[in-house]
C-alpha cells in the first residue's frame, strides 16, 4: 500500500478499509450477539466478537485502534461458527483476518498474542525453506522465538517412539518457486512488533 493511500485509508476509517479489502460491511451488524453466544473463545477474549464489530461501526480512530490492539483478533480460531449463525451473514472471520494483518502492519499486536504470532511465523518460516511444513523445525523455531524451551519436552520422546517425529525436513523440487511465491506476497510492515 502506498503512502498516500494509507493516509486516505486512515481518514476514511477502518470500516471502509475493511469493506474495500474484504467486501464486508460492519454496518450490517445489528448487535444481536449471536456470534458471541457461539464463539468458543469469547470467554477468554478481551472483547467479544460483536464488540469488535461495534468498535469499527462508530468510526472513531481511538476505538478502531482498540480493536487493532485487542487480543480477541488473535484468539479467533477461524472456526466459522459466528459466520454460520449470523442472521446478517457478516463474514466476521474474514474481518478478523484483515484486522490481524492490519494490527501486524501497524505494529499494534497485543503483548499476550506474541506466542500465537511466534507460532504462525515459525510455521511460515518452515514452509518458506522447504515448501512443506517440517514439524520438528516448526517447534524448534517456536521455542527459539518464545524461549519456551522446556515446553513439551515430555511429549517429544513419546512422539519419537511412535514414529511420528520426522527429524529431517523434506524439501520439494519446487521449493524455489515456493520461495518466490513468498516474496511476491510479502506484506509490508510499518515497524517491527
Amino acid at each position, binding site marked *: 500500500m502506498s503512502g498516500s493511500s494509507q493516509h486516505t485509508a486512515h481518514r476514511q476509517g477502518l470500516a471502509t478499509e475493511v469493506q474495500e*479489502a474484504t467486501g464486508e460491511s460492519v454496518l450490517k451488524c445489528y448487535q444481536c450477539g449471536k456470534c458471541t453466544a457461539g464463539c*468458543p*473463545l469469547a470467554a*477468554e477474549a478481551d472483547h467479544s466478537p460483536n464488540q469488535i464489530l461495534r468498535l469499527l461501526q462508530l468510526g472513531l480512530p481511538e476505538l478502531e485502534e482498540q480493536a487493532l490492539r485487542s487480543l480477541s483478533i*488473535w*484468539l479467533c*480460531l*477461524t*472456526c*466459522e*461458527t459466528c*459466520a*454460520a449463525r449470523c442472521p446478517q451473514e457478516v*463474514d466476521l*472471520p474474514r474481518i478478523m*483476518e*484483515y484486522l*490481524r*494483518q492490519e494490527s*501486524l502492519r501497524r505494529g499494534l499486536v497485543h503483548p499476550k498474542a506474541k*506466542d*500465537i*504470532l*511466534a*507460532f*504462525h*511465523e515459525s*510455521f*511460515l518460516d518452515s*514452509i518458506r525453506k522447504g*515448501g*512443506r*511444513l*517440517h*514439524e520438528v523445525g516448526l*517447534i524448534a523455531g*517456536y521455542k527459539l522465538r518464545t524461549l519456551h524451551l522446556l*515446553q*513439551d519436552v515430555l*511429549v517429544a520422546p*513419546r*512422539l519419537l517412539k*511412535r*514414529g*511420528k*517425529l*520426522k527429524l529431517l525436513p*523434506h524439501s*520439494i*523440487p*519446487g521449493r524455489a*518457486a*515456493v520461495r*518466490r*511465491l*513468498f516474496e*511476491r*506476497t*510479502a*506484506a509490508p510492515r510499518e515497524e517491527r512488533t
Partner: protein
Amino acid sequence: MKLGFYPGCSLEGSSREYNESLQAIAPVLGLEFAEVPDWNCCGASAAHSLNHKLALALPARVLALAEQAGLEELLVPCSACLSRMAATRHQLLQDPDLRRQISSIIELPLAGRTRVLSVLEVLGRCATDGLKQKVRQPFGRKVACYYGCYLTRPTAIAPCKHPEDPQEMDELMRAVGAEPIDWAFKVECCGAGFSISRLETVAELSGRIVEDAAHRGAEAIVVACPMCHTNLDLRRSAIERRLGRKYSIPVLYVSQVIGLTLGLSPRQLGLHRHAVPVRFAERPAAAVPAEQAALQAAGQKED
C-alpha cells in the same frame, strides 16, 4: 475409482496413521490414489492469520499442479487443508482478476478445474457402492462422530450439508455396524492450531468434547482431521490435568474404524501410534446391538 491425492504435511508426520489407514483401506474399497507431484504446504491457519494473499497462493499452487497432472478430483483427507483448498478455489472461481494475479504469483496456469473432496465424500461414495458387503467384523460400538469446524463450515464450501447437525459420518459409521450417539459437541471447535501456542485453551475446548462423548456412553470418538486427532488424543494428558480426572475413551480416524471392520490389522491401520490406547471393554454376546446382529446375519447370507 481413481482420485488425485493431497496428503498434506500432517499426514507425513504427526498424523501418519491417518495416511497409513487410508492407504490400507484403499485397495479393499477399489480406490486408487495419484499423489499431486511436487505438492507444497497449504499454509494452514498460519498463512490465513497473517497474510491473505499468501493464504490463497499456497493452496492455489497445489490446485494448479493437480490440474496440470490432469486430476479432476482431489481427495484432501486433512480437513484443515481441505478447507483452505476449497476456500481458495471458491474465491478464485468467483474473481477472474484475482485468479490471474495468483496465477502469475505461482507461475502456473490455473483454471480451477480440479474439484476437492473430503474423506467423508469419498467414503460416502464407497458406502453406496458396496461397502456394507465388504464388512467382515461390524464395529458394534457406540461412537461419537466428531466433525469439528472445517467439515461443516464455512457453509458455502463445507462438504457436510448441515452445519449444526451433520450426518455424513454418522451414516458411514452405521454402514459399518457402529452405533453413532446423539451428543452436543459434534461441531464444536477443538482449539485447532493452538495446540502449541495456547495449550490451555486446547485443553479447555477439547476437554469439553471428550467429557461429553464419554458421559453419553460413547466407546470411541471418530474424527476425520489430524488437528482434531492431535488435540483429543495427543493432548489427552493436558485435558485430564485440566478436568482433574482420567478419560480412557480412544480417538480413531474414520479410516481406521472402517479398516478394522474390513478385517485389516490394528498395526496396518497405525492404531499403535495413538497416545490414548485403543482398547475396548469386553461385552457379553447378549449386549451385541440388534443392528450389528442383522449385519452379521446379512454378511453370512452373502457368504
